[in-house]
């Protein structure tokens, strides 16, 4: 395999001096975010020195003929890689293959032995190229290859080192699945190949046997030809034995090793049954095997055994199998699909991935109320995972369970250690002078690991290839712990001045606003990230150089803790609570720590974030966010009629136009929010659809596929339709058929609001209040539809939160004693009044609350209870323009 000679020694340009920052400068956190919005510049447009435009996945092989070579990239687009030298990088990533997978003849064993080696997962970086990679090495079996193995690797290449480091677990689990799928396919193909080879050999043996007999008859027993033939026969016999042994080995691959949730591919099963035959019958014959095969695999019937030449050529001119040939074609394509998904999942800037992960983790805890206005994200995730083999496949989903394994004691402990050691070190350093690389030791828990990292650290400083982590997935505990260490290693390498232009602090500050926008803008979007991708290229610039010396103790600890944040963030509730406790214990970590990005840990920024979160409408930021989001390329894949955020944003545009055009927009929105079905009546389909689309962003519990909206209805509707649809676009027709429609309109008029597009009138229950005024101000300064959508979304979220509060405040609903039903009613009303809601707004909250209750009960036994349809007897008012 690849030994040390294969590793090319790289020298690294020492750009330490350039990136050295004056310690007296304010740390980035305290600097005022200055965004040069006048220039309309996107801080992410600056290209890094990476030669590729966005992250990609590279599959390389260490070919026994030509050495390391790239096979394919995902996405398969030459523009992605740009001028990036794939050959060169393949060489690098292949040359750190660690694997001691000994295949061949181990000492003391006369037969070739297959090793089932674990994949290795390495993070490496090439700061010169500006490329960092998560590298997943795996070996596939090939009968024709040297030692029967072909080393491959899949690499996730990004310009952002932190992205690789901090998404390590997710990447690892994602790639492990892909690798497992490839290897399963490979085992199947390899077994098939062996079967064929065995048939060949058996055939050869018979032929040779016949020839020998013939020659014995002709030439006598001891002629040279006969002896030659006998030798040849013996060789074939040996070869048969070896191959049978190989077959047995490959068949006996420990399937139990595979996760139980990992799909057992059916095609493999027949092979497995064969395997039983192989292992348990000593008098196993190919013929019998063949019989089994005929039952199972029809394609093998067509195979005719070939005569094998005595000297099977292991020459270099033979064609090696392609990856697709090596693995079963189905498996190969499955893997490619999965890799594509990985690529999509990790597309974009790290902060975006973070926020979406945090977002998802938090949202998944809010299933009780999140279905109201944000279900589609959840659905999307589910959809994603359904596309794969199992739920665990999705890195997002896999993550929480993994980090739960690590448990919150770890993060606590390490945190404590950080504080302790950090404090200690600091005192030491302040005496000693400039910081040493060993500061990274502060998170070390055991000396053994300390040594581990230490060596790695020095290694990384010496060479430009940094093997930052080398983790075996064997035990999850060690896995997580190690990865913690790696995080520290990042800090270390930073300190050694690898990255960090002086402008970094300035760059990060404006990014806050951006991130915030991205956070909200792309809340539920994983696939529409093409534009942001430019951002990831400068991710490394965003590294904040934390000079530990001049800053206070807490600053240091905080930094370290924050570096670990991604791990604890997505843990279960306890971890989050731990964060809260930290906040309370006097450390300058705001209670919102758990929601913060690593860089934005300081209270200044958390305030900033909070402020922006609330205000939200400052035009410059919103403009910026929309400029990146609105002109994005179309979604690369659509899930049927699944409602995507992109669609919703477009709807935001129509909604903005709607509230500007119609002075009674508030009433229409009230109608939708309070659960009264709104019928948009019009003759022209386009207008109606547009209005329905605009109003759909206000529909609570819209459903994954927008089930509660009927954009265009040409027949009259029934009561059950009103129960099902909360927003209906209805065709106005003059024909007699139209009269029945009008009949149903007037018949059910009490249950519906009617928005007449043609006459520009609205007939619905009156609304008095201010909240919807904020939501639908026709003099709004918001220019962009997507910004408006976010604005609406934030207000709807507030409503949902209040509805949650209202639903679960038990004193509001439970009678104090048995005979005070009336007082309950009074308390409810007072509660809503105290929340500052008018009578009409209370109706909204009550409707949302009913939806929450309904949803809450339907969880365990879905479909049993049909939904109820609530309404009120209130006089409708006709609004005109």
């Amino acid at each position, binding site marked *: 395999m690849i030994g040390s000679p294969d590793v090319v020694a790289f020298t690294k340009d020492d750009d330490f001096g350039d990136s050295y920052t004056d310690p007296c400068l304010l740390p980035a956190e305290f600097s005022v975010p200055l965004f040069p919005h006048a220039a309309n510049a996107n801080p992410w447009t600056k290209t890094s020195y990476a030669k590729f435009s966005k992250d990609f996945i590279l599959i390389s092989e260490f070919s026994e003929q030509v050495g390391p070579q790239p096979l394919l990239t995902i996405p398969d687009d030459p523009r992605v890689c740009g001028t990036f030298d794939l050959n060169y990088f393949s060489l690098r990533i292949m040359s750190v293959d660690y694997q001691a997978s000994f295949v061949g003849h181990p000492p003391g064993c006369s037969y070739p032995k297959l090793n089932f080696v674990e994949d290795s997962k390495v993070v490496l970086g090439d700061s010169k190229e500006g490329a960092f990679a998560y590298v997943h090495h795996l070996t596939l079996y090939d009968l024709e290859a040297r030692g029967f193995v072909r080393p491959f690797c899949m690499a996730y290449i990004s310009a952002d080192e932190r992205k690789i480091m901090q998404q390590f677990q997710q990447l690892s689990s994602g790639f492990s699945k892909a690798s497992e799928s490839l290897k399963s396919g490979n085992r199947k193909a390899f077994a098939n190949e062996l079967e064929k080879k065995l048939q060949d050999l058996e055939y050869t043996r018979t032929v040779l046997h016949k020839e020998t007999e013939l020659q014995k008859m002709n030439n006598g027993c001891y002629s040279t030809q006969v002896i030659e033939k006998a030798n040849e026969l013996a060789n074939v016999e040996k070869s048969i034995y070896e191959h049978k042994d190989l077959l047995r080995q490959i068949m006996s691959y420990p399937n139990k090793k595979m996760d139980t949730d990992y799909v057992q591919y059916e095609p493999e099963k027949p092979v497995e049954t064969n395997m039983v035959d192989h292992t348990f019958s000593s008098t196993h014959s190919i013929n019998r095997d063949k019989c089994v095969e005929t039952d199972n695999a029809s394609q093998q019937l067509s195979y005719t055994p070939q005569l094998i030449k005595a000297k099977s050529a292991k020459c270099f001119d033979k064609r090696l199998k392609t990856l697709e040939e090596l693995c079963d074609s189905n498996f190969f394509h499955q893997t490619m699909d999965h890799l594509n998904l990985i690529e999509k999942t990790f597309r974009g800037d790290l902060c975006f991935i973070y926020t979406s992960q945090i977002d998802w983790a938090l949202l998944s805890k809010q299933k*009780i109320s999140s279905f109201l206005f944000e279900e589609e994200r959840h659905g999307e995730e589910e959809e994603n995972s359904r596309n794969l083999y199992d739920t665990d496949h999705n890195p997002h989903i896999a993550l929480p369970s993994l980090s739960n394994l690590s448990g919150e004691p770890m993060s606590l402990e390490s945190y404590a250690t950080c504080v302790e050691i950090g404090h200690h070190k600091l005192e030491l350093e302040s005496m000693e002078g400039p910081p040493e690389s060993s500061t990274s030791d502060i998170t070390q828990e055991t000396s053994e690991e300390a040594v581990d990292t230490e060596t790695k650290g020095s290694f990384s400083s010496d060479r430009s290839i940094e093997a930052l982590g080398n983790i075996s997935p064997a035990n999850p505990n060690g896995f997580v712990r190690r990865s913690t260490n790696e995080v520290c290693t990042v800090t270390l390498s930073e300190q050694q001045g690898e990255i960090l232009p002086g402008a970094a602090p300035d760059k990060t500050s404006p990014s806050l606003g951006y991130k915030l926008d991205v956070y909200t803008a792309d809340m539920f979007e994983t696939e529409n990230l093409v534009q942001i991708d430019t951002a990831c290229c400068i991710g490394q610039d965003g590294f904040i150089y934390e000079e530990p010396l001049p800053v206070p103790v807490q600053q240091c600890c905080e930094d370290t803790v924050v570096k670990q944040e991604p791990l604890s963030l997505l843990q279960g509730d306890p971890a989050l609570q731990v964060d809260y406790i930290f906040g309370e214990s006097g450390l300058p970590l705001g209670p919102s720590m758990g929601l913060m990005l690593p860089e934005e840990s300081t209270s200044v920024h958390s305030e900033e974030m909070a402020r922006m979160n609330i205000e939200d409408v400052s035009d410059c930021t919103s403009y910026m966010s929309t400029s990146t989001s609105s002109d994005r390329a179309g979604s690369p894949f659509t899930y049927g009629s699944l409602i995507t955020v992109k669609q919703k944003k477009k709807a935001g545009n129509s909604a903005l136009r709607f509230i500007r055009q119609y002075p009674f927009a508030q009433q229409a929105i009230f109608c939708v929010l309070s659960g009264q079905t709104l019928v948009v009546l019009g003759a022209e389909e386009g207008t109606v659809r547009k209005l329905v689309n605009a109003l759909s962003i206000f529909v609570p519990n819209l459903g994954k596929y927008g089930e509660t909206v009927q954009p265009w209805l040409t027949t009259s509707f*029934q*009561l*059950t339709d009103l*129960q099902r649809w909360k927003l209906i676009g209805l065709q106005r027709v003059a024909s007699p058929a139209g009269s029945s429609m009008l009949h*149903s309109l007037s*018949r*059910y*008029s*009490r249950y519906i609001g009617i928005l007449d597009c043609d006459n520009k009138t609205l007939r619905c229950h009156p609304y008095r209040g201010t909240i919807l005024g904020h939501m639908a101000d026709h003099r709004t300064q918001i220019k962009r539809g997507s910004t408006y959508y976010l604005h609406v979304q934030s207000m709807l979220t507030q409503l949902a939160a209040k509805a949650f509060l209202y*639903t*679960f405040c*038990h004193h509001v*609903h*439970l009678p104090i004693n048995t005979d005070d*039903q009336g007082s*309950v*009613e009074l308390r409810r009303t007072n509660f809503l009044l105290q929340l500052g809601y008018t009578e009409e707004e209370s109706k909204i909250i*009550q409707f949302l*609350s*009913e939806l929450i*209750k*309904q949803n*809450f*009960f339907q969880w365990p036994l879905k479909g*049993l*209870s*049909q939904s*109820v*349809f*609530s*309404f*009120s*007897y*209130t*006089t*409708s008012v006709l609004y005109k323009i």
Partner: protein
Amino acid sequence: MLRWIMGGRGSQGTIEKSAALCIGEEQPKNCFTELQVLKGHFDIVRFLVQIDDFRFASAGDDGMVLVWNVETGERLVELRGHTQQITAMTTYTFIKGERPHTALITASSDRTLSLWDPDSGNRLQTVSDLHSSVKCLLVLDHLDVWLSGGNELCVWNRDFQLKCKTVHHRDAGITAMVDLPKNCVAASMDKEIMIFKLNLSEAEMSILAIHHLADHQDTIRSLININNELFASGSHIGELILWDTVNWTIQAYEHILWEEPAGDGQSEIRIGQQKQSEMSIQHMYSDGELITAAVGSGLYVYNAVMKSIVAYRKVAHDSDILHTELLDNGRVMSCSEDGSIRIWELQDLPLAAEPASTGFFGMFGTFGRSGKQAGAPTKKLLEVPGLRSLELIGDLIGHSGAVQMFVSFGVKGLVTCSADHLLIVWKDGKRESQLRSLALFQKLEQSGGL
């Protein structure tokens, strides 16, 4: 026949009429602010029967009987077995193993009778090959027998054994039956009411027609029990007769006439054409004192004890009222072919005000048949002491076909069935919301948090 003109005429009348029909959307006294649509039938749903305080059964032209939970809207069991439409359904409570057990008896056009267990959905008993299809069922709890009425009257015991039956009647057959004291049963057949007596003294049970009441001029549409002393019958032309349950004499005779003001020629013609259906007493209901009758598309409330009219409304619905009931809280509910259910409240008339309806009202407050024939003087309505008005306080709109029947579960709600194949449970939204909150906190307590 004397006619008294009351109220305004012409345009004034139409205004009044439309005001009565269109209550508007503001209905503060209407507590039904939530509905649940129950789907399951494939044809007109005609019958609803309350089984206990939370279950009811529905049946209709699709031959299916469905048992529902009114609280959750859950369909509990489906009773399938009849091949044709259900013509009658009733509950049958008997003591089985110390506990009262409620079963359902259904009759169908396929000339079968079945006994169902609504808990398990099993058909416990069935009788087929009847000579005619059964149109009505009556359970005599005190005798532990039940009767089926079609072209003949059959008496069955609990085990579905035919105890006795009457001779074959005319094609019209028995349309309704009521239980009378002394083991008697009144059955309406076309224009007549037959009194049958069950003879239990002999070893073999027998049933005999012992009396024949032929005072109605037209087909009897409705026959009900009022209390121990009285039962009532209503005919197609608006005759309402109160009978004594013991000696079967007429206790009161009312002829309800809805008519248009005189002098309106067109109306007169129209009356001539539609007179009968307009006055047909489709359904009656009594709480022991008050009777409410669905007369054409109007409502009529009569006090059976005082033998006086309480309130009336000529046009209560847009088309014929199919079912009406008095609710516990003194309200009247009616459902109609126009697809709506209306809730009425009996209100005292303001002294100065005119009665709430246009039209004419012919009333013969008489006792005995002779009185009617003599044409006793009618009284002007305003002179009737204690006349009250029926004020519309709410309407329930949801069905798209004729609402056939409804069953009230009190505070738990109201179930309606309709020709549009649907059942709707109407509930008090506030109460339901409260109940859901309670259930929510109960569940929270059980699961120990969210």
